[in-house]
């Protein structure tokens, strides 16, 4: 199986975010990490390759810093990487990001394209499905299991409230992967060493420019959300906090 994994670099979960001067995006000087659901997508791709042979290719878009995500993926076992490298990729909406990806891989034939189910920064949960439509491929979302069958694949979709559903579908196909589908592996030392010699293709914005157009939606303003709830801070040394909380539990909440 030849598998493409779409990955994204996002600000670290605990990183304090600062707004840029125009209040339309965050300042770039934060720590980044791989979008967590994408890590699960990569792991699933590696496991499928271990079962069925083939190749795992990882792709991302973004400035030079985003290459770190690809290097980590190569160290974990991906065979090669594609980096759409330009600061301006950060500002593309999901529609144009998917168009850029489709243009970058137009000469390749993948059996499966995997993405995480959503990103931890935008949280749009759209790029994978948009890519499927642009490429004319069937898709399934929030996937918890992939099995190869005679005619294609059988996937397990997670539905809401604890329900699931198996879906049979032909390949090539696009799947968005749910966190927790598998157990993530760590990169080995030898893997990290080998990663340095694995092929990484850089794609400049100019190469895909003709495929992308104006954004279809625009962030007018990014801001710290206004609190709607009155929150009482409980502070002091731990023993005092414990006493204050118990007082609330007993006298205000009446649960003790």
């Amino acid at each position: 199986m030849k598998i493409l994994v779409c990955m994204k670099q996002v600000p670290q979960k605990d990183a304090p975010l600062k707004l840029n001067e125009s209040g339309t995006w965050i300042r770039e000087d934060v720590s980044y990490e791989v979008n967590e659901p994408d890590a699960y997508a990569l792991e699933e791709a590696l496991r499928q390759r271990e079962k069925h042979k083939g190749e795992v290719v990882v792709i991302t878009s973004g400035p030079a810093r985003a290459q770190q995500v690809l290097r980590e993926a190569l160290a974990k076992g991906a065979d090669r990487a594609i980096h759409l490298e330009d600061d301006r990729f950060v500002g593309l909406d999901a529609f144009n990001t998917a168009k850029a990806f489709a243009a970058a891989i137009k000469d390749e034939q993948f059996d499966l394209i995997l993405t995480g189910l959503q990103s931890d920064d935008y949280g749009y949960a759209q790029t994978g499905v948009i890519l499927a439509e642009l490429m004319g491929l069937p898709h399934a979302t929030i996937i918890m299991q992939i099995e190869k069958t005679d005619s294609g694949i059988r996937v397990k979709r997670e539905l809401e409230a604890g329900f699931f559903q198996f879906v049979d579908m032909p390949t090539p196909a696009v799947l968005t992967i749910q966190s927790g589908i598998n157990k993530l592996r760590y990169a080995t030392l030898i893997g990290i060493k080998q990663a340095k010699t694995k092929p990484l293709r850089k794609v400049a914005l100019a190469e895909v420019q003709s495929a992308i157009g104006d954004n279809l939606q625009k962030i007018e303003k990014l801001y710290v959300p206004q609190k709607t709830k009155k929150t009482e801070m409980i502070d002091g040394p731990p023993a005092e906090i414990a006493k204050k909380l118990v007082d609330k539990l007993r006298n205000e909440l009446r649960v003790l």
Partner: protein
Amino acid sequence: MADSILVVVEQREGKLNRVSWETITAGQAIAAATGWTLEAAVVGANAVAGEVAGKKVAKVYAIESATLDPYTPDAFAAALKQFLTAKQPKLVLMPHTYQVRDFVPKLATAMGRTCISDCIGFKHDGGKLVFTRQMFQGKLAADVSFTSDAPWFATFQSGAFRGDKAEDGASAAPVETFAAEIADGVIRNKPQEVFKEAKQAVDLTQAEIIVAVGRGIKEQKNIDIAKNLADALGGDLAASRPICDSGWLPMDRQIGSSGQTVAPKLYLALGISGAIQHIVGMKGSRTIIAVNKDSEAPIFEIADYAVVGNLFDIVPPLIEEVKKAKG
């Protein structure tokens, strides 16, 4: 033709998904702000069309085709594309459910349009309509506008509007059937029966006190600290998704969009940052106490009592105080 808003309600096996009422409320609010006409559509089961027609909407469309049951993204996107191309509403609203997430990006792309997904509100200032959505796991919010032609697509997060505020109409709205034509070969996926994994052993929906742990608990062995607090309070132990993904607690103790939705008297969140997917499962709790070392964690936005600090320092004395108080 006058501008119109179309709410596409969700049904499963002929029953209306209640979250659809929230989207109707949202549609009524946007209609009031813009003066646009509000209509609704049901895809696949006209049985629920009558129910929706009782609400204050100008019309309800029942989009029908034998190919719409069971649900597939191919058939839903194809049927709605035909319908929307014929009716040309300005704005199409849906609840941000797993099913909608599955087909809306495809539908919008097939029409060369875009969807602002998972919104929590809207603003209409000086004739401009923007949609508010959470970004960076709720740490920031963004006002997003459409820069493309209509139809515009937007989906609303569960709980963003009150379903019980959906206004009834003075009389039942007319129901019109729209027959979608789905050609052979359009549907590529073959869905099997929907099922539930082994019976849920733990029902947290009835719990009065829940102590929930998140990533801040750091290691599996530390779960006991939270367990001891839950025991001391006479409550149940629960967790955010990453804890269950790691296998530190079973999946049936997971709170959030992919787990259980709870509304206890007390929800004590330990080391939970408060990602949207978790919040939607517990924001209905009567009182929320949050302990987190990150003062900017989104969980504090919805907490009644906030403790900024290390849970490993705070929970042990809290257990002792609770035990003392209980005698």
